Each structure stands twice: as C-alpha cells, then as structure tokens.
C-alpha cells in the first residue's frame, strides 16, 4: 500500500466543559498520511496545537482496535464517519481526499451530555446494565459443569452476535430520536437467547427498559439507522426480540 499524503480542513466542536457554550473551530492540517487512522490524524492535530501552545482537542479513545468502544466521534454527519461497520479508530484517512473539509462533533443526546470537546458521558449505559444486564449467579465457580446444558449452536451464535456490542453509543448518536433500543435490545437478546438468562428474563427486560426510559433516551421509530452505523453490525432483530420479551413480561408480570 503506497502511502499518500493529503491536506485537510477540520471543523471540530470545541467546548471547555459541560456548562460552557461550545462552537465549531476550524483547523488546517497538512501532510496527513492516508495510512493513518482517524485518531492518529487527531493526534497529529493535537501535536500541532500543542506546538502552537494551544489546548489540544479532548476525545475518548483507548484500544484503537475497534473493541473497547471508547471512541465516539460524529464525522461528516455520521457516527464513526463515512465507512460502515467501523469504529473511528479503525477509520483510515484513505477514506478522505486531499482538500476535504471534515466535521468532527461529539455524540449528541440528552442522555450523553458533553463533558469536554468531543468527550461525552455515557454512564447511562452502565446504569442500564446495572438495572438488569446480568445473570444473578454468584461468582463461586460452584455452578454446574459448563457442558451440562447443551445450547443449540444457532442460539449461541445469535447470543454472541448480540453480545458483540461494544457499547460505543453510535446507535444513540445516529438515531434521530437518540434512542438506545439497539444497545438495550442487544443486551436483552443475549440473555434471552441463552438458557442461563431465561430464568430472569421478565424482570430483566422490564427493569432495563425502565432504566433506559429514565435516562432520557428517545423512542425507537425503526428508521434502521442504528443498524447501519453499528460498528459491530448488531441487527434490528434484537430490538424486535426485546419488544417480544417486553410484551411477554409486561402482560404476565404481577
């Protein structure tokens, strides 16, 4: 792969802190290798800013291999940028052309308030998980043998596909309603598909949905944007499954 270098113009959301008013700032950045990842390009911008003794842009990032779910930029009007099935850290500058203007904004949702620049608070996801995203089994290791309950491969695979969610919040960011249904649907589905999770299925779905609503996420209108932008390709089937689980639970719970 032959490296190419491009010059770009960046329009980045800058916001001092949660209470400050933010605005878009424009930066010129030259000699960006097309083999660089988007975050490496941001590193380059920050290095430039530091050399100009300006404050670098704050953004969340960690593993830089598409699995931790930290990175969270809304790039040119799309969560994680123009490629599908990709996190920002795996987006490469070869997706951009010389002379491009690139908008970089934080996730926007009431439930994800901006902390600084491009950094948002996604702890709402943690609280949803705490409301029921688990199997209530003690950690003693004194459970039954792992192979005591065979699980149909198809169910196990589907549970895995749902569990592949990295909790990045792209679904919320891209949804015009800031709905968290894909995230919650994936969690509910993972456990609903496995025999270990079925025991608590009713309480789980009711509690997680209640918490989701309390956090101020919007409602799902099935636009399907989340599925398209999800870096892990989590399917809308998971939302449908949650809807089924919810109906079962709401109708039968006492």
């Amino acid at each position, binding site marked *: 792969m032959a490296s190419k270098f491009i010059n770009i113009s960046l329009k980045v959301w800058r916001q001092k802190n949660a209470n400050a008013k933010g605005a878009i700032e424009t930066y010129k950045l030259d000699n960006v290798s097309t083999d660089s990842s988007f975050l490496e390009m941001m590193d380059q911008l920050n290095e430039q800013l530091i050399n100009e003794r300006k404050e670098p842009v704050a953004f969340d990032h960690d593993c830089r291999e598409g699995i931790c779910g930290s990175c969270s930029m809304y790039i040119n009007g799309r969560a994680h940028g123009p490629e599908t099935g990709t996190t920002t850290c795996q987006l490469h500058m070869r997706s951009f052309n010389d002379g491009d203007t690139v908008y970089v904004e934080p996730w926007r949702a009431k439930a994800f308030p901006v902390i600084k620049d491009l950094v948002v608070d996604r702890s709402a996801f943690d609280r949803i998980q705490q409301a029921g995203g688990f199997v209530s089994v003690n950690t003693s290791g004194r459970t039954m043998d792992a192979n005591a309950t065979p699980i149909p491969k198809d169910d196990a695979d589907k549970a895995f596909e749902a569990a592949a969610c990295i909790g990045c919040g792209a679904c919320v960011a891209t949804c015009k309603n800031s709905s968290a249904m894909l995230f919650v649907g994936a969690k509910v589905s993972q456990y609903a598909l496995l025999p270990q999770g079925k025991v608590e299925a009713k309480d789980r779905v*009711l509690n997680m949905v209640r918490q989701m609503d309390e956090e101020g996420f919007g409602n799902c209108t099935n636009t*399907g944007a989340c599925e398209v932008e999800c870096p892990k390709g989590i399917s809308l089937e998971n939302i449908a499954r949650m809807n089924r689980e919810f109906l079962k639970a*709401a109708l039968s*719970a006492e």
Partner: protein
Amino acid sequence: MSKSAILSSSIAKKYWMAITGLFLCLFLVGHLLGNLQLIFKTGEEGRRAFNEYAYFMTHNIFIKVLSYATYISILFHSADGLMLAIQNKKARPVNYVYNNPSANSSAASRKMAVLGSAILIFIVLHMANFWWKMKYSSDPMPIHTYVVSSTDQTGQPKTDTLYYTHTPSLQPIPTNPMIVVKNGTELYFKDVNVKVGDAYKDLHKIVMAFFGKSVNGAPTNEYALFAVILYVLAMAVLSFHLIHGFSSAFQTLGLNHKKYTPSIQVFGKIFAIIVPAGFAIIPVLIFLSR
C-alpha cells in the same frame, strides 16, 4: 410495574402506535373498496352502489363499532405519535451542526411525524367535506333521485323523477308535491302523513360535484381541480407514511424473522403504493370524466 409498563414505557407507546396503525391500514382497505364503487360502476348503477355503501357504512351496527374503533385509533395514533415526537425531540436538545442522516435511513422513516401530521390535517378536511356533511350538516343532504324514461298510455315518451329507496319492490315513489321528506331521508305522503319509504342520501352527487363532475346538471365545485390536486398530494403523503409504517409496525410488535420479514417488507411497500394510488385515482378519473 406491569401496569405502568403497559401504559407508559417507551416500548408500550410503540406498541400502541403499531396496533392502531395496523388497524388503520385495515380501515384503509375497507374504505378503498367502498370508494372504488365510484369508478368501477358507472352511471346510475355506480351511484346506487356508492350511496348504498355510504348508507351501509353509517347504519350497520358492526360497522359502527368498527368506525368508533377507527376514530379512537386515529385519535390515539395521533396523540401517541405526537407525544413520542415531542419526547424524541427532547432526547436531543443540541443538534448536530453537520448531519447526514440520508446515509443510513430513508427520508420516509425519519419524517413519520411530519407525514402523520399532514395526514391528520387531511383527515380533518376530508371529514368536514364528506363525513360531516353526510351525518350532521344542518343543510339538507341531497336525496338520491333518478329519472326514468318511459312512454305513457298514449305512447308519448315521458320522464319520471323517482326516489331511490330502500324498498325497491314497492311502487316507485316519484318526486312530486305529494311526497315530503322528513328527518333527512324518510318519505311521507303529505296528506295522510304516512311513511312510504326511505330514500338514500346522495353522497355520490356531493363527491362528484366536489371533484368537478356534474350529475344531472347539478352545480359543481368551482375549485375542483384544486381539490383533486390536494387529494392526490394527500395520498402521496399517506403512501410515504405507509412505506415505513407498515413494516415498522411488525418490527415494533416483535414480528421480525429472517424468513418472513423480507416478505412483510415487500408486501408493505406494495400496500403503501397500491392503496393510496387506488384512492388517488378516483378523483382524478372523476375530474377527467367531467
């Protein structure tokens, strides 16, 4: 928990949208089948069929129940939808400076609330034009009469204007000063105050006149072209609403399956095109045949 979950949770609100929406789809089918009487049968036959249909729709007890369910559905679907739209708006207090939603979703899916509101406005106008006139207007509704040409005993051609009545086996009731109309459609002998039959309201005539076609020389709507265009536009809006709404309702109800969902989606698309097109073609044809 379960009570509040059924009533107030975000998913429950979506259920109600889906259930009422699908019910309204059924209503659309019924309504369309009726309306098609306007074009499938022509002349007096079509007129009769349509007015009979209109009568049936306003008097059958089963239909009545259904129609109340329809009104409630429309109200609920609108109110619930409005509530959801407001909540959804609130869920993102600060918007993106630069957004490119068309990259990942269809315009129809994103504009459901706007499309729905437009449809609601249309429904209000539509009901004011036809349904309200039919049921509650203080202006007397025109009565369905028809002209029969025959020869009298002398062999001279003559025309009689007769009421189209519910009891066609009886002697035809002519329109003459001997007969008076009471309570909108009841026909009485003026002199003895005896009811001789029930006439039909002539909704057909109103519809035809509204869209510019004169029946038996009746005056027509001078804005008929405008009405036709508006009607067709409204049906286009409905089509977009259904293109997303139909399959979306299944997804909301949890009816998503690899095997069946593609078919539901295709059916939904066809439904969303055929049904509004069916509605839209009627005024166009009426207008063209004026």
